[in-house]
């Protein structure tokens, strides 16, 4: 007997006493009908403020160097720590944990990382480019993520210049193909999506001009600078995009989002993330058909995923990735323990904040996080966390209040026989019920 899917496959556990009665599917479906945009008032940098911090840092570093003193600026790590904390608080308090799961999934689909000043605007990308669209049109999310400054800096498009553009001719600068390649390979068509190196170069040329300007009146948000844009018509996947500045990318993104290879790639990743490697082979194609029939309506696609019988019948297979584990444990415990700190926890568990090893993101294989060192580190972490618990915290009570009749006899017995309260909590955190989803 497995716990409700709203706690496991599509969720992040639950606070004690908040678990649903049945299989949890209706609870998940209900969350799909709620708006996904976060209300303002969170106090974290929006795009304008993030870019201001980014520029202020560059100016201050240069000034400090001239004046031979230590630079004083808002460090990226401060922003990252605040953003990560915000995510935990959100998860602890939310009644829509599926939205947190979707935000993590799409954040991994559109991976961004630490280089340069991505971290100042990473939170904004989640709030403005991912969340508003994760139950909307895929094309909108694809456009918003491709043109977001966090992505533009992460994949070097901010430094990509059309060789025949005015800036390219004057400064003898050229193309950076990274974003063009990842847009096709990772974000839309997939590696087997039938594109060529020529398509990558053409896409990179279409992307020239999308950048963050260093200063000036337009420096506030997402901008397209025509004087860096490679002039001329482009051809991608046999389709011609006439010269037209920023319109070229917008047209390309619409076509990519509608491409059958994109439907296949996007739904495959979705199925793998939520159902695991053992998903029946018909699930992803069924979802891809929904994707195509609805022109990439992610609400319809996600609904089809949740409604598929395999969502209920497959046992929990995946080890929760570290971020999901941290959020789930925080929800179960009713708040994040002060120690170990969130950033240390994520680093020790192998998933540092904004630290994915490549643009392909964190791995999705069921056993990706089950390496010996990783599992042992989870236990070391769990004991550390248990050491700082509220002494009134009773792991046995919490286990009953969260899992109730879904708690296995072995886990119940292990908790009952624990040598002390700290060990009991660590063992609960490490139990298969908490670790797998």
């Amino acid at each position: 007997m497995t716990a409700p899917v709203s706690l496991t496959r599509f969720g992040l556990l639950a606070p004690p006493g908040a678990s649903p009665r049945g299989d949890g599917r209706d609870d998940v479906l209900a969350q799909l009908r709620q708006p996904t945009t976060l209300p303002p008032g969170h106090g974290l940098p929006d795009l304008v403020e993030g870019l201001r911090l980014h520029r202020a840092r560059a100016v201050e570093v240069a000034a400090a160097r001239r004046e031979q003193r230590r630079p004083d600026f808002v460090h990226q790590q401060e922003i990252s720590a605040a953003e990560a904390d915000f995510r935990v608080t959100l998860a602890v308090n939310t009644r829509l944990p599926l939205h947190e799961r979707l935000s993590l999934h799409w954040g991994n689909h559109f991976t961004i990382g630490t280089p340069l000043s991505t971290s100042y605007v990473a939170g904004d990308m989640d709030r403005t480019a991912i969340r508003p669209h994760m139950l909307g049109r895929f094309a909108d999310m694809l456009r918003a993520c491709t043109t977001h400054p966090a992505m533009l800096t992460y994949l070097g498009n901010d430094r990509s210049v059309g060789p025949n553009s005015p800036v390219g001719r004057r400064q003898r600068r050229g193309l950076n193909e990274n974003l063009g390649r990842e847009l096709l390979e990772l974000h839309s068509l997939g590696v087997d999506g039938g594109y060529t190196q020529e398509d990558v170069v053409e896409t990179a040329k279409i992307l020239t001009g999308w950048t963050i300007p260093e200063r000036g009146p337009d420096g506030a948000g997402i901008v397209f600078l025509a004087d860096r844009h490679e002039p001329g018509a482009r051809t991608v996947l046999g389709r011609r995009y006439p010269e037209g500045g920023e319109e070229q990318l917008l047209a390309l993104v619409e076509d990519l989002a509608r491409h059958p290879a994109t439907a296949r790639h996007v739904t495959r990743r979705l199925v793998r993330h939520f159902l695991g490697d053992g998903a029946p082979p018909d699930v992803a194609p069924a979802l891809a058909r929904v994707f195509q029939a609805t022109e990439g309506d992610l609400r319809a696609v996600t609904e089809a995923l949740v409604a598929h019988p395999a969502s209920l019948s497959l046992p929990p297979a995946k080890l929760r990735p570290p971020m999901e584990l941290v959020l789930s444990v925080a929800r179960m415990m009713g708040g994040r323990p002060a120690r170990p700190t969130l950033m240390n926890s994520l680093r020790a568990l192998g998933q540092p904040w904004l630290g994915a090893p490549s643009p392909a993101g964190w791995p999705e294989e069921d056993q990706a996080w089950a390496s010996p060192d990783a599992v042992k580190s989870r236990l070391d972490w769990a004991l550390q966390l248990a050491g700082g618990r509220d002494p009134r915290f009773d792991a046995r009570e919490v286990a009953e209040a969260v899992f109730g009749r879904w708690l296995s006899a072995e886990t119940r017995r292990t908790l009952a026989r624990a040598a002390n309260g700290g060990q009991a909590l660590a063992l609960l955190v490490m139990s298969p019920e908490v670790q797998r989803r």
Partner: protein
Amino acid sequence: MRHLIGRRDVLAGLGSLFAWSYAPRISSAAGARDPRLLVVVLRGGLDGLSAVVPLGDPAYTARRAGSEMAQAGATLPLDDMFGLNRNMPALAEMYRAREALILHAVATPYRERSHFDAQALLESGFPNLMRGERTGWLNRTLQQLPRGERLPPPRGLAISPMVPLIMSGAAPVETWQRQSFRYADDDTVARLLDLYEARDPVLAEALRRGAALDGVMQADPEAMATPAARLAGLPDFTTDAAAAARIMARPDGPRIAAISYGGWDTHNDQGPVQGQLGRGLAALDAALGALRSGLLPVWRDTVVAVVTEFGRTVRVNGSRGTDHGVGTVALLMGGAVRGGRVLADWPGLAEHQLHQGRDLMPTTDLRAVMKGMLAEHLGLEPRLLGRDTFPDSEALRPMQGLVG
């Protein structure tokens, strides 16, 4: 009655972890050898011209005018042409003992300027960016190690939280990451193992192996205490190096491992002697020294290879740093390395001698160096090296006379 697994069982050693103990040794003219290989990946693009300095090239001082590197006493002498950055005394000592071989003006086939792509090529061993297949040449090396027919492939070790690309592939690889938390007590490990054995065999197996690996570290607390070589103000590369050496030196330890260090992308205020790069090189030197002393019992049969994704521009840029370039250095160290030499088909640093007028022209393909080392050190077949280890490199002759 409840059965608690004792410490002895939990920490049963690494034999099963790396599945090598029963593998045949590699035979050679010198008798049976049991070679080990550790690859150190320097991420970010090391400025080879600041590490191994071509003092004998008159163009060098002109191009690096005003750099700390031009100051007297910035280098330790290597030969008539090259000096070693003075922050690397341990490497200098290995060089003098003929245990360190330096290769200069080396590069992968990559000629663009992206870290992602350059590291992908360095680690995959492919001749060009073949997207989709994300496997590494060191993993393919693991698969080619001679072994008995029914033995599983030997396991590799990556000192990192995730298996890096260079070690990714079909052969199993363990990871190890320095732990910032106290190790779990044996009692808790045993209780959890009991639970996993009843409910989750995959987690049980993982926990048993993980506890064994940490047990090696734990057995000698001094080894994991703050190492003496951890110097103030330097990045700590030594702790990971000492851990790698410790696991590898065991008779049942892994024979192939990878470790990586970042911080080489010195666009601003490079400071090759006293600045950022100087500190990085000093930390790397301390780590190389820790590797040698940790691997001393097996040093005779060990090669440590140090590689980076690309070099940096010859000219210093406007912010006293250097930008992404091409040619750079590679190092081979170990008891069997035919060291004490700098191997370089030196292209020169005059304007017309540079790659695209800005970078050290590569004259040696890094794959030829690695292929030569793998052939001589691990006894891998040249035919497989050119086909599987470094695909489509049949025409590239493995360099000879590096090891043995």
